């Protein structure tokens, strides 16, 4: 049976929202940690604001709050229904999309999504302080993993699967690129090979925001270095949040669609164009052309993939 364009759209956004909720939680976790350990005056607020910048939420936040402290930022990123990217809004969006496509997802996926939303929507923001916040952030990530696990374990490998996976990895690629772009200046090659304390703190932040601070050691067997960190999050194909991995994953799923539907669409050209950027290149080349320019270009081309996908397959 053919799939409605709206169903494809719902599936795409369902997993984008789940991924975004997870990324928001991770980002807030990093900001929260950094604000506890920062030794400088005003450091806490600075870290939190850079978190908001990474998520492109800083302007909306400034409209709604005067002070950036753990409480205001946590509320804003977790619970604020007025913030379209808060964990609350993401889970609500994911659940609404899931409900629209009940017949296109499995019972296990539905239960995982519905359960997460019902549980989260009953939490009162004022009850979530201190240690409770850390626990809740971890729960958000676990819920996302559970949903993805249900998807991988139970869903037919058909067009619906491809739209779900594409949504998930388009979102993840965007997130990793934004985290890098927020801190690109601390990754630029400099005369001093050994980073100062502030550099190390910033690098840790980047790696943690991509859940990469542990796996880094397994790949590089080395202390934190700017060049390695950039390489890890951009070009390492074994890193499941790196740009090249995410782009490759989206491509696989677009290829699956081309195979199922017997036709290539404009999104496939956009995909090739995105991949060109990360394949057959090296960190040295990227640095020499400009890291920031590279990331900007990646984000733009990744967006084009998402947009052409929606026109190619009749989303609305």
């Amino acid at each position, binding site marked *: 049976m*053919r*799939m*409605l*364009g*709206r169903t494809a759209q719902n599936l795409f956004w369902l997993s984008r929202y789940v991924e975004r909720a997870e990324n928001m939680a991770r980002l807030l976790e990093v900001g929260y940690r950094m604000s506890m350990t920062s030794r400088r005056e005003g450091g806490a607020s600075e870290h939190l604001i850079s978190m908001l910048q990474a998520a492109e939420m800083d302007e909306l936040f400034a409209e709604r709050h005067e002070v950036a402290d753990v409480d205001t930022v946590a509320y804003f990123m977790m619970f604020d229904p007025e913030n379209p990217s808060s964990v609350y809004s993401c889970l609500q969006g994911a*659940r609404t999309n899931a*409900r629209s496509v009940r017949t296109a997802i499995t*019972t296990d996926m*539905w239960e995982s999504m519905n359960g997460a939303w019902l549980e989260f*929507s009953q939490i009162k923001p004022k009850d979530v302080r201190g240690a409770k916040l850390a626990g809740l952030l971890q729960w958000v990530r676990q819920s996302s993993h559970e949903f993805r696990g249900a998807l991988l374990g139970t869903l037919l490998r058909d067009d619906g699967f491809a739209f779900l996976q594409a949504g998930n990895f388009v979102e993840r690629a965007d997130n990793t690129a934004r985290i890098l772009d927020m801190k690109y200046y601390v990754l630029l090659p400099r005369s001093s090979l050994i980073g100062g304390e502030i550099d190390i703190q910033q690098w840790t932040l980047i790696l943690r925001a991509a859940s990469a601070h542990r796996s880094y050691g397994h790949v590089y067997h080395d202390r934190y270095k700017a060049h390695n960190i950039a390489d890890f999050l951009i070009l390492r194909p074994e890193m499941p949040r790196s740009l090249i991995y995410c782009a490759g994953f989206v491509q696989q799923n677009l290829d699956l669609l081309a195979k199922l539907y017997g036709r290539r669409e404009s999104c496939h050209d956009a995909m090739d164009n995105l991949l060109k950027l990360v394949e057959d290149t090296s960190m040295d080349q990227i640095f020499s052309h400009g890291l920031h320019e590279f990331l900007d270009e990646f984000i733009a081309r990744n967006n084009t993939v998402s947009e052409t996908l929606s026109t190619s397959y009749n989303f609305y």
Partner: protein
Amino acid sequence: MGDTTPFDEMHNADGSIREPYRALSGWLDEQPDKGLGLMQADAEAIFRKLGITFAVYGSEEGTEKVIPFDVIPRIIAANEWRRLSRGIEQRVKALNAFLYDIYHRQEILKAGRVPEKLILNNAAFCPQMMGLEPAKGVYAHIIGVDIVRVGPDDFFVLEDNLRTPSGVSYMLEDREAMMLLAPDLFQRSKVAPVENYPENLRRTLESVAPASAGRNPVIAVLTPGIYNSAYFEHSFLADRMGAQLCEGHDLFVDGGKVYMRTTTGPERVDVIYRRIDDEYLDPLTFRPDSMLGVPGVFDAYRAGNVTLVNAPGTGIADDKAVYTYVPEIIEFYLGEKALLNNVPTYNCTDRDQRAWVLENIGDLVVKEVHGSGGYGMMVGPTSTKAQHEEFKKKIIARPDNYIVQPTLALSTCPTHVDGGVAPRHVDLRPYVLVGGDEVRITPGGLTRVALEKGSLIVNSSQGGGTKDTWVLED
């Protein structure tokens, strides 16, 4: 129908067990203490897991409720069912013939058997349907007939639901749950299956596809969307039939034909099982502010390029005022006496009947002619004096706007309650499918049960639950 003890479906007047309930009675006796309670808890878990919920309007999104399910099935004997289903089939055939006539030559009005005013001035009459030829002449394909029982041989039709009757998913899921909970009880009885309903629905829909449709007509279930209280049922039926679940904006009309927007482009739609009310169906023909419908779909229907199920305008045949004429309607088109009785209904425009009604209002049920879902209704015995007076005034002011019926002593069935098993009042909604080929009636239907002691109100919004309904095979 006096105010004697209501008829209990499990017991004879002398307290002995009625034949159809013999196996159930034995099984109930064997259940350990709290056995039914544990089963009830399991049932609740099964329903949550299957996601059988209904949305509660006005409550926070995400708070869908589970309709209470009673673990003791309601049982109908084979011969009782044969009688019922013959009566139901007769009724739905006559009502479809009536609809065809009303929207064509109106012979029944010319013959003076049904007052012309009652039809042509009725809000449920749909002038846009005049002269339109629905595929195979069928108007009402999917019908839920509400039946109550007041004695061993006394069944009454309370209402014919010819628009978009709901609840069939509960009938199916109740059976699934019951088979999981009490397989041993099934082994002792021969129970007619209900699980063919989605397949029969599909066949019915295919049987009325336009001639232009291919060998496998494309079927869409049209839903108002996820915030509709019956959304679960819409997605459930689409899923079980292998049909596409569409919202209005998933469909469009081009050159008088209906298409759905798929990932690979437009695909022609042949049959639309719409769960949207007539007035929202097409903003170009009905309510122009409708966001739920499909612009132009009525013209495509009129041109015979798509079939709408049920047809628009079927509401004229289940209008409460028209209801009183159903025995006439059956006689007029089929030349037969009605096999199933209507509830006796008093006509308040008749001076003598009105006087009697006003005198005895405390014992009667008053229903607004165009009301539904329990709105605009008064049950005399459970209402206050002030309410009686209020409805008396209403009847005097607009006698044609009300029908009045005696309060029926609905039959009771054994039901699991706190502290054991007790009789509770029930009704029955069998589901009927009228195709271009044949009439298909699923044995049984949905039994609704008033869980409150003594209550006659079976609506889920007011403490009603459901039961699995067993029709025994010979």
